[in-house]
């Protein structure tokens, strides 16, 4: 009740002035960062938007003539002989595969990353830096090299198949390389630290007395996980899934090396337009499509995450 009265209270003139002053100070302090963002992020983005409305150059680059053809080509294809229009199946297949593999990657990274982060967060404080350090080791090596290392593990004559054969579990090598499975394995491996770190940050702040309180109040391990731990580390889960899902969707090194030429993802398709395809406007339009998909998905995800938070 008291809260209601306070909630409707009109701020005094002095308070309003003080608030304005604070806002002015914040804006001033933000200026360098805002300028950098504007130049480094919005600038290139603007160029991409402009390019997507131009015509492709003959060898590469663009011709400065307006055209909606690139955007048309994102979803449709025109037959070169009779000009009939049909849906661009290839693009849709690639889009669907990208979304599917990215979701799968995110899910697997979460299932692996959650216990890992929990394990680290429950170590004595003196040991945690060591575990975090181990988590970050993969970042020291170039992505391409790590991806080739995965390839070495899963290829037909690789470590995994040799081992399984030596153990007598399989007769002939399993074909993993150049399949969606290979791409997923590679992406989970590459993006796992991006899941573990924000989860760990959230769990480190978790008050483990709340976990004990849960056990004390008759919650089993599973119930404590669902009713206490997960709701409390949700910000970390949201951050981790975004950090894994977004780059997965645009990934191109891993799918290219481990998926071979055929299992393309959006990243590969875009790269292709700027390379061999020599169709920069289409590449730009595809990039913008990816960006819009991500933006919509994120907006939806963050909103539903915070909504269910309010209902809990």
């Amino acid at each position, binding site marked *: *009740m008291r*809260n209601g009265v306070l909630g409707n209270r009109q701020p005094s003139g002095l308070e309003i002035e003080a608030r304005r002053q604070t806002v002015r100070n914040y804006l001033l302090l933000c200026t360098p960062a805002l300028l950098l963002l504007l130049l480094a992020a919005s600038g290139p983005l603007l160029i991409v938007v402009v390019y997507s409305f131009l015509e492709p150059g003959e060898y590469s680059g663009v011709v400065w003539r307006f055209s909606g053809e690139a955007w048309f080509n994102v979803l449709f294809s025109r037959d070169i002989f009779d000009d009939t229009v049909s849906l661009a199946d290839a693009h849709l297949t690639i889009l669907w595969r990208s979304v599917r593999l990215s979701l799968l990657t995110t899910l697997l990274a979460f299932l692996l990353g959650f216990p890992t982060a929990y394990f680290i967060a429950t170590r004595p404080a003196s040991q945690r830096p060591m575990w975090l350090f181990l988590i970050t080791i993969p970042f020291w090596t170039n992505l391409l090299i790590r991806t080739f290392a995965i390839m070495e593990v899963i290829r037909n004559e690789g470590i995994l198949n040799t081992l399984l054969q030596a153990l007598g579990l399989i007769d002939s090598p399993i074909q993993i390389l150049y399949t969606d499975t290979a791409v997923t394995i590679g992406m989970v491996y590459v993006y796992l630290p991006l899941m573990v770190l924000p989860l760990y940050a959230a769990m480190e702040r978790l*008050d483990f*007395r*709340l976990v*004990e*309180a*849960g*056990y*004390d*109040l*008759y*919650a*089993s391990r599973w*119930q404590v996980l669902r*009713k*206490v731990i997960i*709701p*409390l580390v949700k910000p970390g889960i949201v951050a981790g899934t975004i950090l894994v899902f977004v780059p997965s969707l645009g990934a191109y090194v891993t799918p290219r090396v481990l998926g071979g030429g055929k299992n393309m993802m959006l990243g590969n398709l875009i790269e292709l337009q700027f390379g061999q395809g020599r169709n920069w406007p289409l590449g730009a339009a595809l990039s913008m499509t990816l960006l819009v998909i991500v933006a919509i998905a994120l907006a939806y995800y963050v909103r539903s995450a915070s909504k269910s*938070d309010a209902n*809990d």
Partner: protein
Amino acid sequence: MEGLSHKAESPPRGQEAAVTAVEARGVTKVFGGGNDAVIALDAVSIAIRENEFFTLLGPSGCGKTTLLRLIAGFDHPTGGNIVLYGEDISPLPPYKRPVNTVFQNYALFPHMTVAENIGFGLSMLGRPKAEIDDTVDAMLRLVRMEELKNRRTSQISGGQQQRVALARALAPRPKVLLLDEPLSALDFKLRKEMQIELKRLQHETGITFIFVTHDQEEALTMSDRLAVMSQGRILQVGSPREIYDHPADHFVADFIGETNFIDAEIQQVEADAVTIRLPSEKTVRTPLPEDFQPRKQVSLAVRPEHADLTRQPAEGQLSGTLENVVYFGTGTNYFVRLPDGSEFVVRVANRGEGNGDYRVGDELGIAFSANAIQLLRD
């Protein structure tokens, strides 16, 4: 001086038929290993009766929290057993023990409302929703928090959080409620209020309370019985009166209230009493404390308010020089220097008629009855 009956204190309600609710049997808890091993509890045995307000009292680090955690099931004993109504519960996880805890920092779930916090235990037990709602309402009424039902726990004050924590722990009607220094975070006035509130709740619910505190006054005013702990051991168990009037050993006498210690010599040992000779050559007979190891030189404790001053030292009375007089409203402390160099404090209650006009430097006698003397174990 009121008649002090020795050890024959009237028992708390229904002691004759007292059922033991919780029992620790030779419980030892060691943390760590090797050179870093800490013995938090050292062969602790204790029986807590059904329906009593039992307090674990002791200085910080003596093992109170450890004992509570063993009863709750958050930790498991290195040796010994925890027994609940005759059943050994040592191997059970906390969620299978009908015991609830009020945590020192409340540990309320920040992502739930007050009502959801209180209903949590019952909902984990799978009770029907209607029953949970009814119990939550009853609990809110019990702790007088009806209006704050739908608040987030971050939007209520410390005292209110304390009440919610109590309601949450009481809602599943545990057989035993454990309270780990629940009042230590509250300011003085609120703490006094909550002390009364806790007694009321215990009375109304009839649940056995095991209350932990390091505040001796709190322990004396609230408990039916209390245990004094030090360095992982239980030194004495008894009613507040037994503990205060008849501390069994030096630590208990010193930790609770103020005490004068007197060295004396044993003259004769009988089955349950001894005759001792005071430094003033007088001999008195006094009962033996539990676990007393007979020896020649012993220590006695005499509470300052159990002694009195006399103008003319009588035959066999302790006597000395008055060194200091400290007036504190409800009474006056007289500090008397004895011939052997030790100090003896006599506290005289202020009865409003002016105390005997003693002056620093006076030679005075110190009078106390044989009942006021407590022979100490160590």
